[in-house]
């Protein structure tokens, strides 16, 4: 396998695409430690992400996220990192991602995302805060599309590899990610 040993692997993509669950699976398959940025942030702040947003607002959350990303990027051993869905929004974070690792953009169309978000809402013991938030209120389909359109270019701009996750099983996506990472052409 030609995965570059000196670099981290960052998974980026919209809420519901499966960064955390795929990250765990891929890390097992290739033997790299797995780091979930959102969990790190919650640990650092001592409260869940929705509460950080509610109490302090998005800009405070983004500042904490930036410092957590910097500390992860400096880990002595390479890791597989599931980033937050808004991590690439900040220019400084984009710089950190591209300079310290290989970035894998996990893509999905809006209907796939909605299906996964709804599944997570109904089946996970702790559905992600952003999935709860995205499905709240009227016209959520339109809103997911809108937010996705605004964020897509941020993901695209940092990606070394982009992989569609539509109509694929987790294991198939994981295999594809590993195959692409191992390819010298990426």
């Amino acid at each position: 396998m030609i995965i570059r040993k000196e670099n981290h692997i960052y998974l980026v993509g919209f809420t519901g695409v499966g960064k955390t669950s795929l990250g765990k699976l891929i890390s097992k398959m290739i033997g790299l430690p797995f780091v979930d940025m959102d969990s790190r942030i919650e640990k650092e702040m001592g409260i869940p992400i929705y509460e950080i947003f509610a109490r302090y607002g998005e800009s405070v959350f983004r500042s904490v996220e930036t410092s957590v990303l910097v500390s992860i990027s400096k880990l002595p051993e390479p890791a597989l990192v599931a980033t937050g869905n808004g991590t690439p929004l900040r220019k400084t974070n984009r710089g950190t991602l591209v300079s310290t690792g290989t970035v894998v953009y996990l893509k999905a169309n809006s209907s796939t995302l909605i299906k996964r978000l709804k599944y997570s809402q109904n089946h996970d013991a702790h559905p992600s805060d952003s999935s709860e938030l995205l499905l709240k209120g009227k016209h959520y389909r339109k809103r997911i599309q809108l937010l996705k359109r605004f964020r897509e270019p941020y993901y695209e701009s940092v990606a070394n590899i982009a992989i569609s996750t539509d109509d694929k099983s987790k294991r198939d996506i994981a295999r594809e990610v590993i195959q692409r990472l191992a390819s010298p052409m990426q």
Partner: protein
Amino acid sequence: MKLDIDEIIELDKSSFLKIVTNTRSVVKMGAILLKQNNKVLESRIINFFRSIFGTKSEKKLCPESLFILGWIGNDDAIELLVSCLKSGEPKIQAGAGFVLAQIDEISFLDLLLPLLNDRSTIVRGWVAFSIGWCGGNYHLEALRNHPYATHKRFKNEMIEILKMIGTREALEFRTSLLQ
């Protein structure tokens, strides 16, 4: 439409207008902009928008075309987005409101809140979603004390925003509005 940096930088106004009337092309252009960080291109795009706002062509723009100014994100782009809030063209106001909230909803909150009382449902809907998405308890006072707080349209959007914020305080406030 296939796009690359060389093509975009050479585009004339009418070709450029074609891009910004198509959502898919807008998103593709965003990735190029963010990746290249090309100041010449950014300045050309800002000038293009300046030349088009307030003209007949403005009506052809899709709301997502305003995302481009957000992706550029420099002072000139933000100044232009702020001026768009008073455009009078709903698609432009909606797009600009959405983008400013994504960039920094706290700084622009005073400018965004009056749009919750706008006649246009697209303007109200886009801005309410943006505030609700980013929002937290720190928004409650601004909503409660806003001069439009008792106006029907504003109140309906507030109810939606508070549901999205979803904290205990927000939901209590929402219940009081529904009574």
